[in-house]
């Protein structure tokens, strides 16, 4: 058990978290999750435990509180009055585990359909038990209190209710926003998510660690490799191993390239929503070049699954440098051309400057991380505050905005691409030789010659495939600065090759939770731009 983990009683929960926030300086609530201990070999005192993960204002330290839930029906006190981000996080636990939160304003299902019966992440819910659902909720149960708070009435104030989504060209996936409009202005909004809930966490409990890698690809599918790396890194931390330097440098290059690709897609789609179709071509096409490089290296364009616990499947191919440098030139060209068109463009500037600004304080309260948080002027980037993988030895800058409006969110991404390209160029020069995988038979697959050439290698391969990599008993939260923000994995291991539980800390989930609030008082057309600038990726948000 790591030393930043504290066990607290459920009666002390609110008090402890308040103290952590106000006195100890843990102002960023990263995630809340639960563990169902039903199938543990030494079950603790209670069936359910809640896990609260918070980050300090120095953005380096984290603290984890573990709370035993005596009775799921009675539940524990809600902390949504302390952190806005707790609102959706608690709803998710209610939905997935059926744990009640006292004094939560709208405690209802969030990821699963409103007609869904049961709590799928409970260990006794069978993984394949799907349920056909028919009627969507009208969301008026959320809208009504919002209107009452604002002293508005549908008829008297002549408001109109409009559904943006779930299937809407600008919703970038299936996300539903219900907006109450006064003319063109949004006076109140509520969002519904979960349309792309694909049971990532439940699937993890049924696969061994390396089999989970393809599932991680499909969290944020615009930067699949980054999820691979983040997951592998967390498991490696639990195993207390470090990938050899060459492996690390390959990971750095691929992570930064993925960040660039992710930002390219976000900006291309965002500008397309605004009518800037030419930008779409300029930004989207170099991405195809990057995919050519990735196809050659990993065999897939989008969902690469290139990483393994303890390293990766194979080394770089001959001539990778020139291919990659060529890609960088094309990306740079695309960015430059696109910026030429928008930088001094009145339509671009007028449409998104001062639209939906989020102050630094609000952003932290909402649980923002990544470019969206930095746009609000908060200098938080894990690569700086808690550098891993030699990031402290690279020469690059953190990009920070000022007011956190749609403009800042987009421009921060433009600049970050340049910084990532800088990192890649340095990493190409510094690429060391040597191994890419840890030399440990319990973790890394033997070479094909060994497998076909001897009984020992064959058995080794067999054990690794059937049992998987055995991870020591314990629990760990690992964080990674992904394209959209802090991507965390909270993993509970019972010592076997299959995780007992995996929880993703998805940056987009918290960005989306804030979305209905920040679009208020702006027009529908602004809201579309704001959604694009937040870069909500449904795969990661709904998991």
């Amino acid at each position: 058990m790591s030393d930043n983990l504290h066990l607290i009683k459920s009666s002390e929960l609110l008090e402890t978290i308040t103290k952590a926030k106000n006195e100890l300086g843990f102002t960023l609530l990263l995630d809340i999750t639960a563990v169902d201990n039903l199938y543990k070999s030494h079950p603790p005192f209670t069936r359910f435990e809640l896990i609260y993960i918070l980050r300090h204002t120095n953005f380096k330290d984290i603290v984890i509180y573990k709370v035993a839930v005596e009775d799921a029906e009675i539940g524990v006190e809600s902390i949504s009055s302390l952190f806005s981000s707790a609102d959706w996080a608690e709803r998710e636990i209610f939905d997935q585990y059926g744990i009640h939160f006292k004094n939560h304003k709208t405690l209802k299902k969030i990821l699963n359909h409103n007609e869904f019966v049961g709590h799928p992440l409970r260990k006794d819910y069978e993984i394949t038990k799907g349920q056909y659902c028919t009627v969507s909720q009208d969301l008026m149960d959320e809208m009504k209190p919002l209107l009452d708070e604002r002293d508005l009435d549908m008829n008297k104030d002549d408001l109109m209710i409009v559904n943006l989504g779930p299937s809407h060209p600008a919703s970038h996936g299936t996300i539903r926003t219900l907006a109450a409009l006064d003319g063109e202005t949004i006076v109140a909004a509520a969002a519904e998510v979960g349309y792309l809930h694909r049971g990532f966490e439940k699937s993890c409990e049924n696969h061994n660690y390396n089999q989970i890698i393809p599932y991680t690809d499909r969290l944020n599918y615009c930067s699949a490799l980054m999820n691979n790396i983040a997951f592998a890194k967390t498991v490696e931390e639990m195993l207390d191993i470090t990938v050899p330097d060459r492996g690390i440098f390959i990971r750095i290059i691929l992570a930064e390239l993925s960040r660039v690709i992710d930002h390219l897609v976000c900006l291309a789609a965002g500008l397309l929503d605004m009518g800037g179709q030419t930008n779409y071509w300029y930004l989207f096409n170099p991405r195809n070049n990057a995919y050519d490089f990735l196809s050659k290296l990993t065999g897939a364009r989008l969902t690469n699954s290139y990483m393994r616990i303890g390293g990766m499947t194979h080394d770089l191919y001959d001539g990778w440098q020139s291919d990659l440098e060529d890609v960088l030139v094309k990306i740079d060209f695309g960015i430059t051309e696109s910026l030429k068109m928008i930088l001094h463009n009145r339509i671009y500037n007028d449409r998104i400057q001062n639209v939906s600004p989020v102050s630094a304080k609000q952003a932290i309260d909402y649980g923002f991380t990544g470019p969206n948080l930095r746009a609000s002027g908060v200098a938080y980037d894990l690569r700086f505050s808690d550098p891993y993988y030699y990031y402290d030895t690279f020469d690059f800058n953190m990009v920070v905005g000022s007011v956190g409006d749609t403009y800042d969110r987009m421009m921060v991404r433009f600049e970050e691409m340049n910084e990532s390209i800088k990192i890649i160029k340095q990493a190409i020069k510094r690429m060391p030789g040597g191994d890419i995988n840890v030399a440990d038979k319990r973790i890394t697959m033997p070479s094909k010659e060994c497998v076909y050439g001897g009984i020992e290698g064959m058995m080794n391969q067999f054990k690794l495939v059937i049992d998987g990599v055995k991870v020591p008993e314990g629990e760990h939260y690992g964080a990674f600065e992904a394209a959209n923000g802090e991507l965390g994995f909270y993993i509970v291991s019972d010592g076997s090759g299959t995780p007992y539980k995996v929880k993703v800390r998805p940056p987009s989930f918290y960005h989306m939770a804030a979305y209905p609030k920040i679009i208020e008082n702006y027009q529908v057309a602004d809201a579309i731009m704001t959604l694009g600038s937040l870069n909500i990726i449904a795969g990661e948000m709904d998991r």
Partner: protein
Amino acid sequence: MDLSNTHLLDEAVVTTKLDAVVTWGREASLWPFVFGTACCAIEFMATAASRYDISRFGAEVLRFSPRHADLLIVAGTVSYKQAPILKQIWDQMPEPKWCVAVGACASTGGFYDNYTTLQGIDEIVPVDVYVAGCPPRPEAILDAVMDIQRQLKREPKFELRNTEFKGKLDDV
């Protein structure tokens, strides 16, 4: 114009069968509605972008209202929560209409064999072409469009399609 001059008429008039004209029109102007939900939708974006350029096959007029479209392209995972929406969109499309399931998820549920994921959209709507891959390459999506074009040539032109089909969400 002197209509008795048959020579002139020859150049201005083409005689053909009504069927052939209709097919020719339909084939060259499929209007897709893209029900993009997940990773596969990103590859569809690439298919529409300039390198792969779906407009070379006459299918670039992407419609965002199902009432304007005759080709439903389902790109991505469809969950049980999404299924009623997919069905509603399909029902809103006017006849004749075709449907392509892009990727493993839309075709069979893919590797999401779990409580959230519909095990193939053909449980809800009739599918004409399945595209394998996770995600399929853009070329495969283009190939599916061409498949639909070939298929519609063979079909009767003025009959309702898929009258036999009964999905899991019909009559509920």
